[in-house]
Structure formats: C-alpha cells, structure tokens
C-alpha cells in the first residue's frame, strides 16, 4: 500500500467537480440533489483520508464524516419533501421554473 495521499485528494477533487458539473448542468431538482450527494461524498472522502493519513491517532475526520452522513440524510429528506411540494405547485420539478426569489 503506497498510494500517495495526493491521489486520494485528486480523486475527491474530481468527484467534487463532477458534482458541481451536475449541479450546474442538470435540469431537474432530483438530479441536482444527487449531484449534491456526490459533492458531500467528495468532502467525506477528504475528511476520511485526511484523518487516516495526517492525524491517524485521532478520529476527527471519521466522526465528521458520520455527522455529514447524518446531515445528508436529513437534508435529503427535507429536500425531497420540498421537491414534492414544488411538484405539486408547478407540476414539474424543473430548476428553471423556481425563480420566485429573483431581483
């Protein structure tokens, strides 16, 4: 096992930007939600890797990942309920149709 820590970070970076791409480019809200999950996971990888490689004696990154997962679950639940509500209002879940907060 002699993978340099940089490769993990680059992996997470790529995953993060795949998420970003999805977030910006996708049209419907659920896809965007999934892109957010990708981004969160990219962050999680970073936490874990940093914990393992840099401060292996402690568990900060580990515990943080746990919290992130918990919060991600919560966020998803709320997001999905919002999406469903939006769907009820607009009969679609296109991100473009939700711009009431402009100007």
């Amino acid at each position: 096992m002699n993978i340099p820590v940089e490769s993990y970070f680059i992996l997470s970076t790529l995953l993060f930007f795949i998420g970003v791409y999805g977030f910006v480019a996708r049209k419907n809200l659920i896809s965007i939600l999934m892109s957010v999950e990708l981004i969160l996971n990219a962050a999680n990888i970073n936490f874990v890797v940093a914990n393992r490689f840099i401060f292996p004696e402690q568990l900060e990154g580990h515990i943080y990942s746990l919290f992130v997962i918990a919060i991600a679950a919560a966020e998803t639940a709320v997001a999905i309920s919002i999406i469903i509500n939006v769907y009820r209002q607009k009969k679609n879940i296109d991100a473009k149709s939700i711009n009431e907060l402009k100007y």
Partner: protein
Amino acid sequence: MELLTASNIIFFILAAAILLFGILTVTSTKILRSATYLFFTLFCIAGLYLQLNYEFLAAVQLSVYAGGIVILIVFAILLIKGLGEDKEINIGQRRIMGLVAAIVGSITCASVIIKFGFMPDYDLADLMVQTVDMKVIGKTLMGTNQYEYLLPFEAVSVLLLACIIGSIAIATKDKEDNK
C-alpha cells in the same frame, strides 16, 4: 516503490469506478438510471473506506447512504409522475458553464494539491494497519472530553428530529389543495 500491489490495484479500480459512476450519475438522461449510478458510486466509496480500514464508517455509508438516501430518492422519483420518462436534455449554455467550472476547478485544485506536497516521508504501511475500535468510536461520540463529540451528536439528533417534522410539514398536502 512498487505500484502494482494488490491494495493499489484495488484502489485504482475503486477510484475508476467512483469517477465513472459519478460521471454517469450526472450525465445519464434517465433519472432512475442516475439514481442507480449514484448508488454504485456510494457503494464504491464505502469500499474506499474499507480499504482505509474504517469499517464502521463504511458500514454507515452503505446503510445510510446507499441503503437509505438512495432509496429515498428512488421513491421520490417514482412518486413524481412522469419523471422517469422525462428526458434530460441539458444542452447548451448551462452544460458549457458546468464543464468550464468543473474543468477549471479540477485543474486548479489538482495543481494546488500537487504543489502543496503532503508529508513526503510518512510510513504508509504503518498507518494502514491501524483499525478503529468500535469502543473508541462510541466513546468519542458520547464523551465530553477534548476531541469528544457529545454536543454535536445531540445537536444532530435534534436536527434529525426537526427534519422529520419539517419534511412531514412540508410534504403534507394543504387541506385547501385537496378541495
């Protein structure tokens, strides 16, 4: 430095899978398929955790993420009528914008990471073998000393409760809508 050790190969496979499924997640035109690809991505990430000897985290990742969240999303997709057939056509401006952001961002971050140089002389083999004892995790989560996280834990639990209530409140149909 030997590259083709077993663990290295596993890492490369995992990494390739993560990226592949990630890309598929965001590019697939069928939304249910994207959800499926997302599941695979998360699954592979759990594998990565295992490789790093964080079994508990991998388990949580699998159970909560892959098992919970993705299922939730799938349910939502199925709940929303006609979404499955709704083809994602994301040509044009936003796709280019996304690509620009992703490519420029990746290059920037990658160059930063490479330039930074993380601890050139550590002993990887030593690090990898340390497994995390469940007891330690439990103690860390519930303890009140330094580097122990009772308060955030409780906060998260409150947050979760709030989320449950909130999502129910939001998703409940208004009575007037029914009429």
